[in-house]
């Protein structure tokens, strides 16, 4: 049971640096928390309101008090041990939520201050950072990780500076994963940032799948269309993809890719029925299409747009039940979509 304690004016409930083992609620009187602002060195006096908790953070975090709790006017406080407080809070979840909000604001603030100070030395542009993480995984033949990271890169930075390269690395990772499996085969991305010689002798001589090869004309056309798409020129992109698709058919690398992207264009143009028709066509004609998970996901999206959540969920479930695609962006997107529908 929490204990009621009385404190005289000018007494101190706890000192900065004390071991923190109690959480307090002010019942009556006045208490001030006095401390020095770590940012500007100013003395801060934070007056506690009646009914307010104090001493929570240090008690829960098991670190020393960071302020003096000084009694301004004769005060009575309810003192909880940490287990008592936790038990009390468990049946008053609103209180925890309120504290979580206060704490998360404080965390945001202090995090921002730390970041500010760090900025000059170590901040890495997140786009570059993500791309480099992908390169690391590819170099170390962790293909499924590389595939995840480049997939994410393209999700967040479809028109990013390294989007084209990311697309090629994504393919290289997928190819290597299918062909060799994680940790095996020649590294699709040889060399290392630190200039460490690769231990795999064949890595240096093996041809690198697509990654570094000169782009063929059809590849150039394809990436041009991808670029149009990422610029939001969906109608133009659609025409280009159609042309590539007609020229390449289902064979080769770029025909099926263009077919998939054409569907994305239709979707981007809000042509739900046409999207569904188009993707249904691919599912029937090319059941082993490399982008099948994404195709199924897009089908789900189109059905959702048409207001048919049941069918949409059916497609998302298909995405989630597909083998070997555990960390694909389609899976993640499908999960999120299911989630959103569930939460709606």
């Amino acid at each position: 049971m929490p204990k009621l304690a009385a404190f005289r004016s000018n007494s101190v409930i706890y000192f900065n640096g004390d071991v923190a083992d109690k959480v307090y609620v002010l019942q009556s009187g006045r208490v001030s928390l006095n401390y020095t602002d770590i940012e500007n060195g100013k003395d801060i006096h934070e007056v506690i309101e009646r009914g307010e908790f104090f001493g929570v953070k240090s008690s829960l975090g098991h670190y020393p008090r960071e302020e003096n709790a000084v009694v301004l006017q004769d005060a009575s406080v309810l003192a909880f041990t940490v287990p008592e407080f936790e038990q009390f809070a468990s049946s008053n979840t609103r209180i925890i939520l309120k504290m979580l909000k206060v704490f998360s604001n404080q965390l945001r603030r202090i995090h921002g201050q730390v970041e500010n100070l760090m900025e000059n030395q170590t901040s890495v542009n997140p786009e570059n950072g993500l791309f480099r993480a992908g390169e690391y995984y590819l170099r170390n033949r962790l293909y499924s990780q590389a595939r995840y990271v480049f997939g994410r890169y393209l999700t967040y930075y479809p028109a990013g500076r390294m989007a084209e390269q990311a697309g090629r690395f994504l393919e290289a990772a997928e190819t290597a994963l299918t062909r060799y499996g994680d940790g095996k085969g020649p590294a699709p991305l040889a060399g290392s940032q630190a200039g460490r010689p690769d231990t795999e002798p064949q890595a240096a001589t093996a041809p690198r799948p697509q990654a570094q090869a000169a782009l063929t004309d059809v590849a150039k056309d394809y990436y041009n269309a991808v670029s149009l798409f990422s610029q939001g020129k969906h109608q133009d992109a659609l025409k280009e993809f159609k042309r590539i698709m007609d020229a390449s058919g289902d064979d080769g690398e770029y025909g099926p890719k263009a077919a998939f992207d054409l569907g994305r264009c239709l979707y981007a143009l809000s042509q739900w029925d046409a999207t569904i028709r188009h993707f249904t066509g691919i599912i029937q004609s090319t059941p082993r299409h490399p982008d099948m998970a994404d195709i199924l996901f897009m089908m789900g999206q189109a059905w959702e747009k048409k207001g048919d959540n049941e069918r949409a969920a059916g497609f998302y479930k298909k995405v989630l039940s597909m083998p070997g695609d555990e960390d694909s962006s389609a899976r993640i997107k499908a999960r999120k979509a299911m989630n959103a529908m569930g939460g709606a």
Partner: protein
Amino acid sequence: MSDLSGFSRFARTYQPGELIFAEYEPGDSFYLIQAGRVRITKIVGDIEKNIDILQPPEIFGEMAILEGAPRSANAIALDTVKVLEFNRANFEILMMGNPQIALRLLRLFAKRIYDQKRRFMILTLEDPQAKIADVFLMLDETRAPMNQGAAELDGDKREFKVTVDDVAHWAGMNLNDVQTILGHFSNQRRVELYQDRIVVKNINDFIRFVNSKRKK
């Protein structure tokens, strides 16, 4: 662990080796581990460093509450991992129904705030040598997972499983400067430098040194 059967729609499963999220990826969700272990790593140059290994019922990715902040590490399933995934939108539902999780998050935030304040204290020291000494004090105080428990050797001697890179990161300084200063400390026989660890010969010496440089 509290009853979470009502939260199955937030449940996700990851296979061993699968990335749950990658560093620098924008984060909008955080995770509660229900089964399996999760490896937290950072890629430093050509090495993927283990920062922590988490298990049920730990929470990770909680910094997602910092809007738009990129992930600071990779989270990789070590076993078949079952998690509950939460974001701002469904956070409140979970917390209202599960005070135990809310409390765990509250404790985690309390610790994070303290950790960040402690880092802030390092970064605001003006003397670069003091900054570096203070990094070791911080590691010694918090026994951060980074150093898997700063091993207490005899008396005032401490061993930290950290590299010069780590120290540079915590001190917010560039690698060369940190190398120079650590070399200097090593010449003074205040530290011993190894490939994978750094030994501080007398932690109290560092405490006195940092205190003398900290403005009161």
